[in-house]
């Protein structure tokens, strides 16, 4: 059974580079194309919490260290 997790993405730290989105193995991240942060950039968000397996791929690849990862305690 894979782990269960969720992530928090800092809207203001995110630069919308999309690198976390393309490296999430379960496709549960996306850029919010209908909103921007104060710098005018679309930011990434967790689309489907049930799918997150706490693999940390997104937080490892994120250049701006905008992602915090939590894992469900077994």
């Amino acid at each position, binding site marked *: 059974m894979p782990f269960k997790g*969720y992530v928090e993405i800092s809207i*203001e*730290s995110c630069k919308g580079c*999309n690198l976390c989105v393309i490296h999430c193995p379960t496709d549960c991240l996306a850029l919010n194309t209908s909103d921007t942060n104060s710098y005018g950039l679309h930011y990434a968000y967790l689309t489907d919490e049930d799918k997150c397996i706490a693999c940390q791929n997104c937080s490892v690849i*994120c*250049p*701006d*260290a905008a992602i*915090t990862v939590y894992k469900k305690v077994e």
Partner: protein
Amino acid sequence: MKEGYELIYKRPKALVDVRMHYCPGCFHSTIHKLLMEVVEELDIQDKTIGVCPVGCSVFAYDYLDIDMQEAAHGRAAAVATGIKRMLPDRIVFSYQGDGDLAAIGLAETIHACNRGENFTFIFINNGIYGMTGGQMAPTTLEGQETTTSPYGRAPDKDGMPLKMAEIVSQFEMVAYVERVSCDTPANTRKAKRAIRKAFEFQMKGLGTTFIEVASNCPSGWKCTPEESLNWLKEHMFPYYPLGVLKEPSKKKKGNAARRTKTE
């Protein structure tokens, strides 16, 4: 935090909580993050001294919450030499782009490596001068279009791209050389391990440690961050292959031993 969950990753505290000025997707930011994660893991925040270059990372001292020194363009290796010699118990690194380390600062780089200076080079090779608008660097690939090679780098006029990691591996007193990248989570994890190893070898006094990052410059390459990853795979990695080029041999004595013998 939600109930029943535990924190497994958060931004390192040694990375100042401000927005870095780098372009979206630029590996300068990724390497800053990895450096500060390693500093935290090794618990050396109050013992680490970084030397900033001239280039996009000229303001790295605003982001890395450790002692930092700014060097004139290309002179980071000379400044790091001075710092490490005066404060040998500190962990010292220079952080330099390819214009800084391989063009204007090539002499400092080569001689520091030849002397086996016991600090770590963090060399960000993105194939161009990022800060000044994407001019050709010594590391620009054959045929690569830049603002000063609009028809592509031509070896008959411009020579071939310098393979710095391969060059410095030749020096006897260089202990550890690895080329890494941050294009995938797996490679980013390897990059962090390499930085950690370099610092650990430095702490043992084994000699010069050199980490080359096959890096990107989405703005200078005029592409999206995602496209820059493909460009790395298609063009950079074949010419600048990733991996360990040199590791300290278990049998040979490090430079620390060599120095005490002569001093």
